[in-house]
Every structure is written in C-alpha cells, then in structure tokens.
C-alpha cells in the first residue's frame, strides 16, 4: 500500500499532470494530421523526454501514443485517409458512414472503443505483468537468449507482406546492433575509426531517421497535399452511443482481448491488432457482407483492438525488456537512458515507479475522453492543417532532436543515413518493425548467447538443459518449422479431398 501511495505521489503532481495534458494535445494533433504516425510522434518526443524525470517522460510517451492512435480515426472518417496506420483497417467503413452524415456518431463510438480498449489492456497489464515478472526472476542467459530469438522470429512471421523482406529488415537491425566495442573481447566492430561509434549506434537518431525522416522523404516525393475539403457533419457525438454499446459490447470485449494479445507479441503493433480483430469480427459476424460498406460493427472490433494493443505491448517490454511494438522499442531506449533497466527487477523496485506507470496508463486513457471529444468537435482544425507548413518544421525538430542526444553531429549523420536507407526500403515494401526489434534485441541476443557459452565452455546442448529454456527453445523451433508443417498439412488435406472426389 505504501508503495502504491508513493506511485500515486509520483503521478499526481502538477508537473506530471501538465505533461500528460500537453502530450494528449500533441498526440491528438499528430494523430489527426494524415502522414504523421504515432511512432513518429514518440520518436520526436524522445529528445524532450531526455530532460524530464522518469515518470513524466513515460507519461508523455504513453499519453501521446494512446491519443495519436485514436486521433488517427479523425482524418480516416472525414478524408478517407488514415491518420495513423492503425486506422487503416476500418477506414472505408468510417468514411462511408461520414458520407451518410454520421461522422461524429462514428468518431464518438471510436472514442468510446479506444478508451475501453486502452483500459482493458491496462487492466491486463496490471494483473498479468507482476505475476509474469515473478517467473522471469528465475530466468538466466539461456532463457533470455530464447526469448530474444522468439521475439525476433515473431517479428518476421507476423510482418505484413514478404517474409524474406522482413528477414532482411531484421538483419539490418541486427547489423546495427553489432556496431561498437564487442562485449567479450573489447574489439571494435564496424566503427570505421569514428570514436562516437565505439559505444554503439545510438538508438534515438535511428528511430528519428527511420520514422520521421523517412516519412518526410516520402511526403516530398509525392505530390499529394491531402487538402481535399471534407464534408463536416453536425450530428451528435454520444447520443446513440448507449444503443451501440448495448448492441456491440461483445465485439468491444473480443476486440480488446485480441488487441492485447497481438500487442504483446513482439513486432506486432496496434495496426496488425486492428487488422486481425477486424478479420475475426467479420468472420464471426451475422452481417458479414455489411463489413466495408459503412458498418459500425467492424469499427468497434478494430478500434477497440488498436488501443488495447498499445497497452498489451508493454507487458513483454516491462517484464522481459522485449518490446511488443515500435513504440515500446523506443520506450525501452528511454528507460535505459533513465537508468531504469526494463525486466523483472523493475517490479521489485520499492520507489513506487511501477505503480506510477500503471496509474499513468489509466489517466492517459481516461483523459482521452474529454480531449478526444473536443478533438471531434474541432476536427476541421486538424484535418485542414497544411502539411507543406508542418513538414519543414518537423524536419528541423528531427535535426535538433538527433543532435541533442549526445550534442554530436555523428548522430545527425546516423539519422540521415538511416532515414535515406529506410525511405528506399519503404518504397520497396520492406517492413520497418523487424529492423527496430533487431536493433533493440540484437545486443541481448548476442550477449546472452556469449555468456551462456562462457558458462558452459561452448556446450550448445546447455540451451536445452533447463526446463523453461528447453520449452522456449522448442517453441522457437516450432515457430520456424510452422510454414513447413502448414504446407504438409495443406498438401495432405488436398490429397484427401481429391481421393474422396475420385471415390464419389
């Protein structure tokens, strides 16, 4: 109880509450302007959080990401352009409803589902994370090796599009993680004689380059200004909400459960959670054919899932230090910068920090309701914000933000090179999430492998000598051979069907 009160004290102070309010407004703005993503917002926020205390810093990130995910629905509804990729699954439904003059009603339901999903994910985080942390305390380098490998493998298997491209993207992240002095021998690797690279590639400039500079280059490479005039409706935001909640509450619960689960898988973020929840909702719906034609049910499924995915992603990030999505990958970097090593020991900390984090999650999701309501009312301000004015300002923030981490131009070069490469890869449909996971988990993977080998004099079988380690290893191997098993199963099923046809 005392620790909880300490946590409450860390959150309920003027500084943290003001930070939450400012972050909520920033999140709404970034989410509602098409082309600016939640991850980009968080990447831009990091240089500022660098100068904050740990709790306000985390509060800023949590609030910004939750708000941006909801606000992405605003341009999706009015302009048919998803503000963030997480709104893409149900963009046609939202826009078609807006065309029928039901834009505010749709956004009101989006807001309620986002708040519900966010709170649902937070409750799971609060109850599941501490119990998982107790198990994680038994983990040694063997288990961490398998966990890191599981996370990296998931990022390839879950990625949308080509798995080979996801694999190559992961390799880029892993290569970046090897830059610097080797932990075991002290030998410099890929440093090219640059002293600033001895400590490794800084995480923040990579993030800014990958998400912000990449988006900027894509924007200047296209001629789309996103300046189509929307048809703003004047219908009520919440008046029909009780009726919709009564009708679709099972969808809200199912969407939130799927979102939390998918969010907790490394590499799968809110966007994948929304797509999967939408697909599951459609397959189980009585009105399947109505999906995609301006039907509220699909919106409820997916918008509950994307916000719960944000909270779900924090479970592996806090318990094992393994990010669930791009945003928690950035958060892990921030936690390390603040001297708070993510992992089971964070739950044993007696300063109330973990309770403060949980409280922040609840406040961030609750504050979404009034600010989201205001955002729906003043939607015009956001959706007509000219990107040709915003993008140059964002580039300058990227520049100064990357420089400010170490006060070094090397970080600006890193941002530039990574941003340039990311824009080429993005144009060729390479997913970015595996690269970030590779960068974050690469060091854990290599260090845990090397320490395990040192402990056992290079005995590879030692990775299967402990029960949890063997279980995790079996899970990884099963995941790797799953495409082969699926292929064999499909072939057998096909043969069986053909035989049955011949007999009949």
């Amino acid at each position, binding site marked *: 109880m005392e620790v909880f009160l300490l946590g409450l004290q860390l959150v309920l102070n003027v500084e943290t509450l003001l930070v939450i309010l400012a972050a909520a407004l920033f999140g709404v703005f970034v989410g509602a302007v098409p082309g600016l993503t939640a991850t980009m917002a968080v990447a831009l926020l990091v240089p500022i959080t660098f100068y904050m205390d740990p709790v306000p810093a985390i509060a800023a990130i949590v609030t910004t990401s939750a708000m941006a995910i909801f606000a992405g629905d605003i341009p999706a509804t009015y302009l048919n352009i998803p503000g963030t990729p997480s709104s893409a699954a149900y963009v046609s439904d939202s826009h078609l409803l807006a065309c029928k003059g039901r834009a505010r009603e749709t956004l009101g339901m989006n807001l309620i589902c986002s708040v519900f999903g966010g709170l649902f994910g937070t409750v799971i985080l609060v109850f599941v994370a501490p119990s998982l942390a107790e198990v994680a305390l038994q983990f040694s380098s063997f288990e961490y090796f398998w966990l890191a490998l599981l996370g990296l493998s998931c990022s390839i298997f879950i990625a949308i599009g080509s798995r080979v491209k996801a694999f*190559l993207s992961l390799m880029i992240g892993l290569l970046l993680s090897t830059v610097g002095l080797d932990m075991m021998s002290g030998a410099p*690797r890929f440093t090219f004689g640059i002293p600033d690279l001895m400590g490794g590639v800084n995480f923040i400039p990579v993030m800014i380059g990958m998400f912000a500079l990449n988006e900027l280059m894509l924007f200047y490479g296209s001629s789309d200004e996103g300046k189509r005039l929307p048809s703003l409706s004047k219908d009520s935001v919440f008046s029909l909400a009780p009726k919709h909640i009564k009708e679709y509450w099972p969808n809200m619960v199912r969407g939130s459960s799927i979102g939390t689960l998918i969010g907790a898988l490394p590499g799968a973020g809110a966007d994948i959670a929304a797509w999967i929840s939408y697909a599951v909702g459609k397959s189980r719906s009585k009105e399947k054919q109505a999906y995609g034609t301006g039907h509220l049910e699909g919106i409820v499924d997916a918008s509950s899932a994307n916000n719960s995915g944000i909270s779900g992603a924090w479970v592996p990030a806090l318990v094992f230090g393994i990010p669930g999505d791009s945003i928690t990958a950035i958060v892990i970097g921030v936690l390390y910068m603040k001297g708070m090593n993510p992992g089971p020991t964070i739950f044993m900390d007696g300063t109330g920090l973990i309770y403060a984090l949980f409280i922040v999650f609840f406040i961030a999701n609750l504050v979404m309701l009034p600010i989201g309501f205001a955002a729906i009312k003043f939607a015009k301000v956001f959706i007509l914000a000219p990107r040709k004015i915003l993008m140059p300002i964002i580039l300058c923030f990227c520049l100064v933000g990357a420089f400010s981490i170490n006060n070094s131009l090397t970080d600006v070069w890193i941002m530039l090179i990574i941003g340039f490469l990311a824009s080429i890869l993005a144009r060729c449909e390479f997913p970015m999430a595996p690269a970030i996971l590779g960068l974050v988990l690469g060091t854990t993977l290599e260090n845990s492998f090397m320490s395990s080998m040192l402990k056992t004099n290079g005995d590879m079988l030692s990775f299967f000598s402990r029960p949890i380690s063997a279980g995790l290893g079996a899970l990884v191997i099963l995941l790797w051979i799953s495409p082969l098993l699926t292929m064999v199963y499909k072939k057998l099923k096909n043969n069986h069907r053909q035989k049955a046809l011949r007999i009949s």
Partner: protein
Amino acid sequence: MRDLFLGLTFMLLGAVVVTVASQYPTMASLQYGPSLFPSLIGGGFLIGGLVISVTQLLTLKSQLLGAGASIRTALDFRSILVSLLPCGLIIFYIFASEFLGAALCLGVIMFVLMLVRRTSLPLALCVSLIASLIIYFLFARYLLIPLPTGLLNFWG
C-alpha cells in the same frame, strides 16, 4: 527489376560483412568470438538477397515469355530529386551550422522546403523565421543544448 537490384545489393553487403568479420580477433578461451554474429548476419544478407534476386528473375522471365509483355519502369526523376531535398538540407546544416549558426540554418531549411511545396513567399518567410527562433530558443536556452550560434555571435 527494383527487387532484383536490391537483392544483389544485399548479397554484396553480405559478402562485405562476412569479409570484414573474418578479420576480427578470435578468443583463446572460446571457439566463438566477436566475428560470430556479424558473420551470421552477413550470411543472412547473402541468403535473403539470393532468394529475392532469384524470385525476381523468375518473375521477369515469365513476364518476358508472356505475350506482348513489356517491362517499363516509369521513373519520375523530379519527384525522386525532391524527395532527396530533406537529405540535402540536412547535409547543408551539418556543414553550414558552425558558421551560419543553427537558428539561421533551420530558418533557411524551412523556407526552402516551404517554397518547394508552393507556399506563398510572405507566409513561408514568417513561419520559418518564427519557427526557427522558437526551436532554437527551446533547445538552446530551455534544454541547454549547445547549438552553434554562428553569425548570431556577432550580434551578441
């Protein structure tokens, strides 16, 4: 075609990584040294690049065999050049900020980028001036980042 080129580039990168990694020292106490992970990553690049290249070659072959198929890639050079402008302006900042100062460089960058997207001249001038000063003072004075002052030094 684009994927074929990328596949070959990844294979080349893989070969370079493996070659560089082979020069790292080995450890006397352990058969695995600092070269192990980079070598595996290099191998990954080689395999992934090979798979992409072969897949793309097979697709190209089937396209060539197809009746009346033509392979044309429409490259819009103007849009490629404009998309590279942010990178060019970052390089400008890296080399010019020490002399011109961060505030002035940021202003120039914003002004150029706004003009490229046909923002009206007075608006571009006003926004870049105000925004560059806000960013400069936020980072340099509030967050105490040592941003280069450059020409501002002369004006005190």
